[in-house]
């Protein structure tokens, strides 16, 4: 009895998937995404939700989003779109052109779009995601909104899949709604390892990342890990908690001799 029901559900799921011509939306059954050297170089066309607890982590959020978006930029898709509510500019800060270069994004490629209402916000995200020249849409959403429900996220994920551009929703707070996002990240900034020659100066940006939904490819860390930003992109640190004194863990990609490579790249 139970088995028949299960089989029936499976058939229905397969039919829906066939109708939509894409993988079933439930996270557990998804195959791990194909990844390259960088475990976070995810393919385009996905909807991500990135959460952090407090508004003051906004810069860490933007940095992470730019890091995810950077591998998607290319000659065919040269643009990034940043969407923000017009009233939140002072609270959250505006993306600063001169600081973008550090994340490998040229300021000319970032289109900044300020909207008045959540309706306009969703419209702008959707419209930008449909554009074939847009690699990723980064939406900075400071407050929870009723309109950002499952329907809205489903719509956005379909748009993203259709057009092949990634949509990143930056959300703040601890509340979670049902969502059709393929990935849900939870971020917080983490103390950096310090500069190689001056332990009292801040080193490379570091995040603590928890994947609440979705799965990374083989070789990537477990659901909770630490992440550094290097000149070559993201580097996942070893499982061990990095020491505060500056003995950083090894990047999981790249260098042959982890400790040495790490020190060299910091020096450079």
């Amino acid at each position, binding site marked *: 009895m139970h088995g028949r029901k299960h089989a029936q559900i499976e058939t229905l799921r397969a039919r829906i998937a066939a109708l939509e011509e894409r993988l079933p939306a439930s996270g557990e059954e998804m195959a791990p995404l194909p990844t390259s050297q960088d475990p976070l170089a995810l393919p385009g066309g996905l909807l991500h939700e990135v959460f952090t607890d407090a508004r003051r982590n906004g810069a*860490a959020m933007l940095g992470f989003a730019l890091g995810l978006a950077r591998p998607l930029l290319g000659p065919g898709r040269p643009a990034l779109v940043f969407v923000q509510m017009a009233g939140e500019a002072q609270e959250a800060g*505006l993306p600063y052109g001169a*600081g973008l270069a*550090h994340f490998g994004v040229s300021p000319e490629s970032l289109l900044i*779009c300020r909207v008045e209402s959540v309706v306009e916000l969703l419209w702008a995200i959707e419209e930008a995601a449909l554009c074939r020249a847009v690699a990723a849409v980064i939406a900075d959403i400071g407050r929870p909104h009723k309109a950002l429900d499952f329907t809205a996220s489903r719509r956005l994920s379909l748009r993203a899949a259709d057009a092949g551009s990634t949509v990143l929703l930056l959300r703040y707070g601890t509340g979670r709604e049902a969502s059709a996002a393929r990935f849900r990240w939870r971020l917080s900034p983490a103390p950096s390892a310090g500069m190689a020659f001056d*332990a009292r100066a*801040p080193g490379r940006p570091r995040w603590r990342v928890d994947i609440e939904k979705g799965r990374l490819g083989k070789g990537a860390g477990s659901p909770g890990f630490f992440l550094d930003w290097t000149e070559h992109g993201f580097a996942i640190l070893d499982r061990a908690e990095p020491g505060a004194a500056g003995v950083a863990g090894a990047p999981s990609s790249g260098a042959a001799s982890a400790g040495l490579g790490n020190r060299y790249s910091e020096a450079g």
Partner: protein
Amino acid sequence: MLHLPAWATDTLRRAEPGLPPDRPLALWETVRGGMRLCAVDRHAERAGLSPGQPLSDARALCPGLIVREADHEWLAARFADFADWHSYAGPIVSVLPEEGRHKPAYGTLGIDIAGVAHLYGGEQAMLDGVTTRLENLGFSVSGAIAPAIGTAWALARHRPGTILAPGGEEEALAPLPVSALRLPEATIAALGRLGLKRVGQLYARQRKAMQARFGSLFIARLDEALGRGNERLVPRLPAPERHVERRFAEPIGLIDDVLATTADLALRLAGQLEREAAGAQGFHLFLYRVDHKVMVLSVNAARPTRDPGHIARLFAHRADRLGGEYDAGFGIDMIRLAATTITPLAPRQDGAFAPPDGTADLVRLKDRMASRLGPLAVSRTGFVDSHIPERAVRLEPAIAPLPDDPRAAPDPALPRPLRLLPAPERIEVLAQVPDGPPASMVWRRLPYRFLRASGPERIGIEWWVPGEEALTRDYYVAEDEAGRRFWIFREGLYAAETREPRWFVHGLFC
């Protein structure tokens, strides 16, 4: 040419429906310390009143008279709207100034109908249609069609309904009084004293003698009336370079209908532009309301285009932004779509072999966003040659053309935050030494303790900017216990510039 002798009072009656329709109405103004009538309606005219009469006389002559003070500004503004609306009939509409009055003008309207009349079934039908329409609305109106402005002006007042073919000016104007020549009153009186009452009497006179006696304006007016001048209408609305339009038998009101029509019109306009191998950047939608108002919606494209779907979408987004501004009144009976800033655009085949990159898509995206969210809402970063962080970067409208010499981005080796607060926020800071790095701060009522800090990067004032009075800033990148990084600065050099430097948060680092 349309002459509306009682426009002021007719408009007042339309604006104040409570006025009794059968009682005389007049407007007065203060002239040289006395209150005199300046406009009278039909009833008042029949009762023997005329403009220029003192108000008290008029009251005595006509006991039932209703009077109002004339608000010339208001009347002129209403007349301007009224004139704009008449561009439904012909693209160039102009309000003709009243002779000898330096006030805002109203009362006479010139419409250039060259090449338009056939749309109405001929000039006679057009004139009848236009005047009947105004009469139905309660305006007294007389009109005439003539090859020259001066001729039409004279005929509209003295021979309403005339349609004059080129060449007939002298004959048609001969029996008219000399007041048909748009002359100042003093000149008309002087002509009268010489027994010159009819225009025809002037033909045989020597021009030189007349010019010496009455001035060159007189000769110019006479020539204009006889079609020998070179006078042109001064259009009120910018004359569109290309336009297409549609009229409705029944007025429409819904914005959806308007947009559907716009899509059709865009298709026709695109066809026109394509035949000329041209594209346009400015598009204007004129909505003619039945109650004499024109609504104009304008959108701009970043690059010349003639893609009908794109034009229609831009207007659809612009309409979304209208919200409560959209008011169809009693309905819209004509829509015109016009294009400006037309530049050559080579014929091109879209589709099959177009390169797969999305640059064109991106341009269209910017247009769509700017038309829906407003042109200032969509921006990109532009660099300005300045050391002061908030001046070094500014947001430029994304649809503006890229500057020819893109200014070099600031030195990437300098630490610059990912997010900049538009206005630096004042904070309380503890530092171990007054000119050292910060140890802790209170920002937005939350305490932060810094474990690491780098800096300072000293940014001086731009003393060459006039009126610059800021203090030197020392910028630090400070990281707190949780790993958050802030870009904070101390304003003023300790001891050299100030005894109590103030601290600010200016940006957030990742």
